[in-house]
């Protein structure tokens, strides 16, 4: 069993000066809709340690996806700033990779081609590219599907390919925007386990958005609860249940209902 305390990179007393993987300082988002402004995100402050797995839960439309999009640099913040390892992060970067609910794979490329995509953008040679890609295709258990085109893959396999494509870039931060939201329960359970073991073996920092509270408790070191729009963090729950966690676990179910109560309360306001 694996607890967050045993994992490398978290709360290491011998690295006290290492800046956090992610700092979000007063980030808010306001946009124009027709002739009026909409506050999507109230100013958010959040620090994520290196190697930490943080889950954001909240009602749909609360701005949690917007926050991920801002952290990835694909969307500018209206106020505030995003710091990656202490440095201001402006614009998109493969260091902060966003994964989407629709896997966003390229249908004109096969699995191998998709996983190699970012490596090619980085100018890595074909032989190295293919060996790196192979490593991650193997890691997500898609060995043998390298030459398969996307339309022939199941939803779960598409998300695996997307995860391999992201990991191949070796990002410091994985931003996952309801990546398993469209999958059936069985596939989702398998992918939870796989994601957890990938996270444990690679030591990636993960910011994971979901509206599924149990999913958040099963995966996160910490669960943050968002209010309805304009989204702000209303509660924070450290999850110190031993890993790997089972969705049937009593401790997990108790924690989940505790969080759900807060969330329901928020939505009634």
């Amino acid at each position, binding site marked *: 069993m694996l607890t967050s305390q045993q994992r490398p990179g978290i709360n290491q007393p011998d690295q006290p000066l290492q800046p956090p993987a992610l700092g979000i300082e007063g980030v808010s988002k306001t946009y124009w809709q027709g002739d009026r402004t909409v506050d999507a995100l109230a100013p958010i402050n959040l620090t994520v340690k290196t190697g930490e797995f943080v889950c954001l839960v909240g009602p749909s439309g609360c701005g949690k996806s917007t926050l991920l999009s801002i952290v990835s640099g*694909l969307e500018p913040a209206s106020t505030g700033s995003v710091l990656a390892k202490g440095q201001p992060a402006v614009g*998109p970067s*493969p260091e902060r*990779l966003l994964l*989407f609910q629709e896997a966003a794979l390229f*249908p*004109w490329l*096969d699995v191998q081609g998709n996983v190699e995509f970012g490596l090619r953008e980085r100018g890595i040679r074909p032989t190295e590219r293919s060996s790196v890609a192979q490593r991650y295709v193997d890691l997500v258990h898609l060995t043998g599907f390298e030459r398969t*085109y996307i339309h022939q893959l199941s939803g779960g396999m598409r998300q695996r390919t997307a995860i391999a494509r992201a990991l191949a870039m070796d990002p410091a931060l994985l931003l996952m925007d309801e990546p398993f939201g469209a999958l059936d329960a069985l596939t989702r359970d398998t992918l939870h386990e796989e994601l957890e073991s990938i996270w444990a073996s690679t030591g990636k920092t993960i910011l994971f958005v979901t509206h599924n509270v149990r999913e958040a408790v099963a995966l996160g070191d910490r669960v943050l609860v968002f209010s309805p729009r304009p989204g702000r963090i209303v509660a924070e729950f450290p999850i110190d249940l031993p890993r790997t966690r089972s969705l049937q676990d009593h401790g997990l179910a108790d924690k989940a209902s505790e969080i759900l109560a807060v969330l329901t309360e928020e939505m009634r306001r």
Partner: protein
Amino acid sequence: MAASDLAAATAPGFPLAARLWAPWLRRALFYVGLVAVWQLIASSGMWPSYVVPGPNAVTASLADGLAGGVFLVAAAVSLSRLAVGYVLSVGLGILLGMLIARFRLADELLGSLVLALQSLPSVCWLPLAILWFGLNQTAVIFVVVMGALFSITLGVASGVRNTPPLYVKAARNMGSHGWRLYSRVIIPAALPAVLSGLKQGWSFAWRSLMAGELIYFSLSLGNLLQTGRDLNDAARVVAVMVVIMVIGLVCDQLLFAPFEGRMREKRGLN
């Protein structure tokens, strides 16, 4: 009798070779039937043979034209004009289509104009082309370009404009920008629409070429049609029409079909 044979040939359990051949057999029978009906009408005496030539006369004219090399030379001349006009249209069409898709101003100014021009049959340009360039090859090629350009432009514009934003986000996140974003994401994503624009452009180019060549006197397929009419040689006219159709079919099969088939298969569009 024949119908029941065919039903047996397509039924499961029948030898594989026979099932593979069944579509070809059906097609062959269809054409044989078509020619038979044609022969019946031609030999019924309802119309004189210089109005409705029979299959025999057309075949003879076709053989004559092919053996004498006239058809081949004419086809080469027509195809070379087509190639020049089409390549120009593709280059200009991609440029215009990208501009319209990329810049709001270009869309505002050119979008509706291109739509209007596309609805104008390209042969309408012929009088103007003759006034501008004289009755020569340039005028014919101009008409070809006017025929093909706007379909290609619209295909490219719609393909680029309809690239799913998610693909662009994912690619930008992985470090694509500028030209590479186009060459590796937007153009491949736009390919199905671009290809259908290219195909439509091709068939419009071919039609425009024939229209232009009808009035321009130099050996070419369109011109052979016109001389056939001048000589009251309906068999020759039909023979040339057959050649034009065959070339159209072959070009489609060689230029577009393999490419399109592979693309559709990769993306699961079949």
